């Protein structure tokens, strides 16, 4: 099954890095990119993706706020929050909103684990 992944990061380079790892793991999956929270929300409203990978540190609304907003719109959405800031408060809040916390710099293994789990959840939800 091929899924559509929303990648939200204000850094173009960081989006390229996620894209590279994503293509290596699942070449058939599609990618939607947003540079900020508003763009991401407009994609959510038009139902353009199945799972999301967000950066925590973004100008305007941060990734945690956006994660809560996206999950409110799409409750079954598998979502990962990427941050170098692994303080207990951030990790706990990420879990509370239903996001998976991934540490930056992102390793291929951490991303693949998230994608595998996301695919499993999406398949279960569709069944």
């Amino acid at each position, binding site marked *: 099954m091929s899924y559509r992944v929303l990648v939200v990061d204000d*850094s*173009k*380079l*960081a989006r*390229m*890095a996620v*894209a*590279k790892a994503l293509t290596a793991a699942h070449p058939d999956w599609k990618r939607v990119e947003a540079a900020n929270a508003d763009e991401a929300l407009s994609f959510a409203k038009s139902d353009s993706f199945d799972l999301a990978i967000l950066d925590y*540190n973004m*100008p305007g609304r941060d990734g945690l706020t956006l994660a809560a907003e996206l999950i409110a719109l799409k409750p079954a959405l598998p979502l990962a929050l990427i*941050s*170098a*800031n*692994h*303080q*207990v*408060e*951030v990790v706990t809040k990420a879990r509370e909103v239903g996001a998976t916390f991934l540490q*930056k*710099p992102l390793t291929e293994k951490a991303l693949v684990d998230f994608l595998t789990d996301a695919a499993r959840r999406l398949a279960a939800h569709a069944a």
Partner: protein
Amino acid sequence: MTDILNELQLDALTEMVNIGVNRAASSLREMVGEQVLLSVPKVTLVGRNEAIAILAKSESSNLVGVHQVFEGDVTGRALLIFPDTKSLELVRAVTGGELPLEEIIELEHEALAEIGNIILNGCMATMANMLQRNLKMSLPEILRGEPNVFFNLAPPPEAGEVVMFLYINFALRNRDIRGYIAMLMDMPSITALQVLLDEFIERTA
């Protein structure tokens, strides 16, 4: 002068310093036992005189800074700078605010050196790791004075020196403290940095 680096190089640098300060925030969190927010919203490259002018224009009070020299493929100075009116507030925030003023004043020097060391090392070590190079860091030194003090340290700076200027937002215990990180590098170091950034971009994107 920002156009010394292309869009992706500047993006890579911003990303690295953000990862660096976030790591530093995690270390500071261990120290203060409470969430610490650190972010670098903007990175610019300016000449030395422009860096002095930016600080003089934005900050009316004297400044206090932590200074460390880094050496390796890229060599230069790293500075963490705050308005000195915020310095005691920062120390109070880090020590928990229970201490009497005279003790805070006594601790100021040591606490600033420690905070500076965590933040500057967080940035420099992250950059070094991501660029796959080793950087040697000197011990932190505290400086005080007007903006030109920070950019005219001995030995006399070279005319073509570039300052990588980072705005840093620092929030803990309901206090918002704004500061700056500056990295001074000469042209050969900037050229070396460009090569390392390109290699990094090649590896990651």
